[in-house]
Structures are given as structure tokens and as C-alpha cells.
């Protein structure tokens, strides 16, 4: 990339949205949806019917709302949303050790038959969903931060030149 191309790329940022960061967050939302669809599809007696699943539903809603707001924020190159995305990303990864891990280790008795609540296949799938979702959030935060900083530096250098 020539120097002119680099400058043009920075100049373009003045007028274009940060779609890469925004799309990464949207991907995180989709992965979260795959996670909870897989969990809620499970048919293992009454294992999930307690307050944990209620809290999980509420958290999923809050996550999707927060992530969507953050997606719009980073799309419009607003800095504060990077912090929010890091937190959301870490929370997603942290969730692996709660419901999926608990369910993977649990055994329930249905019609006098002992069943594994979450088989290996489902476990690895939901873990992958949560981890990749978390990574997407963190990656969006990092790319957004880098892009915003690049743009801020470019604007500052332009202002210096014009002064």
C-alpha cells in the first residue's frame, strides 16, 4: 500500500462507518442466539426448570440489547463502547464455566433412566458459541479502539497542518 493509499484510507474513515467492528458484534449476537437455542432445545426432564434458566434468559436478552447498542456505537466510531464490549466478551467466556459446565457434569433421572443433561457434542458446540462470541466482542472492541485512535491521530495531524 502506497503512502497515498494509507492517507486515503485514513481520510475515508472520516466519512465511513466502522462496519468491521459492528459486524463482529453482530456475529457475537448470532452466536449467542445459537447458544441459547441449543440450551433451550434440550429435553432432559426438569433439569433446566429452575431460577438458573430464568436468569440465563434475562441475561441473554440483556446481552443482545447491550451488544446491539455497542454495535451501533462502534459503527459510529464512539470510543466508550469498546470498554463495554470487552466486558461483554469476558462475560461470554466466563459463562462457559457456569451453565454449560454444570449441565455437562449433571445427570438426571427420567422415567427411571439416568440421562446426561448435556452430551459432549452439545457441550462443545455451546462452548464454541460462547467462546467465539466472546472473542468477537473483544476483537470488535480492539479494532474499534485502533480505528478510532488512528482517526483521532489523523484528525489531529490535519489540524496541526492547517494551523
Amino acid at each position: 500500500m502506497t503512502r497515498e493509499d494509507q492517507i486515503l484510507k485514513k481520510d475515508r474513515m472520516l466519512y465511513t462507518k466502522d462496519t468491521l467492528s459492528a459486524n463482529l458484534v453482530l456475529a457475537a449476537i448470532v452466536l449467542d442466539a445459537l447458544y441459547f437455542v441449543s440450551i433451550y432445545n434440550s429435553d432432559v426432564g426438569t433439569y433446566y426448570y429452575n431460577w438458573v434458566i430464568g436468569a440465563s434468559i434475562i441475561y441473554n436478552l440483556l446481552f443482545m440489547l447491550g451488544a446491539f447498542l455497542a454495535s451501533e456505537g462502534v459503527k459510529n466510531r464512539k470510543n466508550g463502547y469498546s470498554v463495554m464490549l470487552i466486558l461483554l466478551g469476558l462475560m461470554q467466556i466466563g459463562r462457559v464455566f457456569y451453565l454449560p459446565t454444570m449441565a455437562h457434569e449433571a445427570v438426571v433421572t427420567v422415567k427411571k433412566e439416568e440421562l446426561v443433561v448435556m452430551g459432549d457434542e452439545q457441550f462443545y458446540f455451546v462452548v464454541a458459541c460462547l467462546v467465539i462470541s466472546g472473542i468477537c466482542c473483544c476483537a470488535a472492541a480492539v479494532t474499534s479502539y485502533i480505528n478510532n485512535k488512528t482517526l483521532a491521530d489523523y484528525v489531529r495531524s490535519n489540524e496541526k497542518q492547517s494551523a
Partner: protein
Amino acid sequence: MAELSLQHLEKVYDNNVQAVFDFNLDVKDGELIVLVGPSGCGKSTTLRMVAGLEDITSGKMLLNGKDVTNAPAKDRDIAMVFQSYALYGHMTVYENMAFSMTLRKENPNVIHKKVLAAAEVLGLTEQLNKKPSQLSGGQRQRVAMGRAIVRNPQLFLFDEPLSNLDAKLRSATRREILLLHKRLNATMLYVTHDQTEALTLADRIVCMSMGHVQQIGTPLELYDSPANLFVASFIGLPPMNFVDVRVNQGTLVHEHFTMPLTQAEQKALAPYEGKTVVLGIRPENTRVGDEFKLKVLSNENLGMNTLVHGHIGPNGEGERITCKLAGWCDYKPGDVVSITCTRKHFFDKETTNAIPVEVEA
């Protein structure tokens, strides 16, 4: 840019309504042609046929010598600016202008350069991050023009682009289009029903009525030598006055006046001796004089001029006409003013065609 040739273009809709009849026009490179006429005269249909938005029923369309009669709109390399702007409300000005090139997957840096250059030309640099809803009508229309400019098309089409703007903005945007045309030296086809736009913008005007071309010529030709009664009545504001007169031995005879003819006029009207012709008088070609009397109906002071409306004859029994007299006049309804014509136009009463009078040296 481009040369456009429209040969015997016709448009017949599915319901057998014919909108355009035998339309012929050769547009030179860099020329700004204005299609003017009242609503329903076929000017927008013609433009849409050129754009490829309407099928051409018969005839031929050549763009730079290449037959594009049946080419789809996307392959014609023509950009069109609509009356309603047709901007995407959720996109910024920059995104709107870059949209067509983004779809064609052009290099983002090239798109960026073109958008910034077009924005500079149109004075939109400060507005690039705004959405269309945050812009004035004139600015929106400039964005629509910018979207056309960035494509660098062979031909620009404008379909009544100023109709949604208020009078002041229309005048300013009109000047901008004119400057833009000069700067880009682009070939442009412009449709309007506003004769002021036609006269001020056009290199040549195509005047249309009921799907037929009435006259093609420079603005001065259409104003000064209208081909027929329709063009004479359509071009000029206030419109030309028409009075039926009889040609009689070197004079024009009317119920309320007799007007002498010049040598050239006598020569032109010789075949009409004893017959009735239509005398056309532009309001601005009148002054206070002694050729006929006008009984005043109303008076409109415009500052430098006064529009005097009235009926011919001392008792106001003749045709109603409008005179544009110099200066500030204070005529009251019922006043009788003596008027002289400084320039006359003649039309055949049967064919409505103009009777050409050779200009005297």
C-alpha cells in the same frame, strides 16, 4: 462525453395511447438540451426512453454512434437525476454518492477521491456526514447530482430536478446546474415544464406538445421566431397576446384599429391579402403610443415595468391583452391607454404556423 442521436423515436403504451410521435434529435457533445412543454406532452417519456426506463416502441437511439435502442438501462452509461431526489434516507451524503460505485465494487480509495471531488464541485464537503433529512431541498438535489457526477457517465439526464424547490432556491440551483455544465462540459438532457429554466439553461430547446416536437432551436430562436402558435404562447412570460386581424392593402384591419405594415411585413403577408391572420404581440413589445386603444382592467407594478391588463378598444369590447410598459404606471380600471407595438409576429389562422417576416436591414 457523448453524442446522442434519436431517430424517429415513438412510444405507444400497452393501452394503445401514443405518448411520443416521430421524435428526432441530434445532441452534440457537451450540449445542454432542454425538453420543455406542458404536463403530458411526452417530454418525461422521451427522457425515460433515453435512460432505458421505458421501452422504445419504434425508432433508433445512438449513443456515440453505437445503437443502444434495446440496451438495458445499466449498460447505457447514463446517469439520471430525478425530481424526487431518490436518495437513501438511512445513508449519509457520502454513502449516497458512493453507493453506485460501491455496488460495482470499485476500489474504495478511488470511490473516496471521486466523491470528495464531486462534493467539492457541488459545495457539499461540509455535508458529507449528514443524512438527507438534515439537508435543505437544494442540498438534497445537489447530492442527487453528485451521485450522477461521481459515475462520470456519458450522458446526464435531469427530470424536472428543480420542481420541488421554492422559487429562490430554484433560481440558485439553476445557476449551479449551469456552472456545473460549463465546468464538466457534459452532455445533458434536461426536462422541465418551466420555460424560464428552459430559456436560461439551454443551448437548444426542444418544445413539445401532445407528443409532437413543435420546434427545436436556441432559446433566442424560440423566443424571437416561434414556429407556431403553441410555441409562441408557451415561450415568454407573460405569454404572447393573440389578436385576429385582416390583411388589407398594406394594413392590418381590426374592429378597433388599423395598423400599417412595413415593407417586409407586406411582402410576407401578400399571400394572405383579404384573409384573416393571427397577430402576435409580446407584452414586452408594447409601449405607450398611438396604434390602438386599451381599456385598462388592472395594473400590476413590478418596479421597473408595469403589467397592464385590458381589452382592446376605447370601450373595452375587443380581445383581452397584456402590455408590459416601462416604468411605474398608475392606471385605474376603466382608464384608456394608447398603445403601439414595437414588434409583431404573424401566424396562419388555419395551420397555426408562423408566417416568417424577413428582418429589414
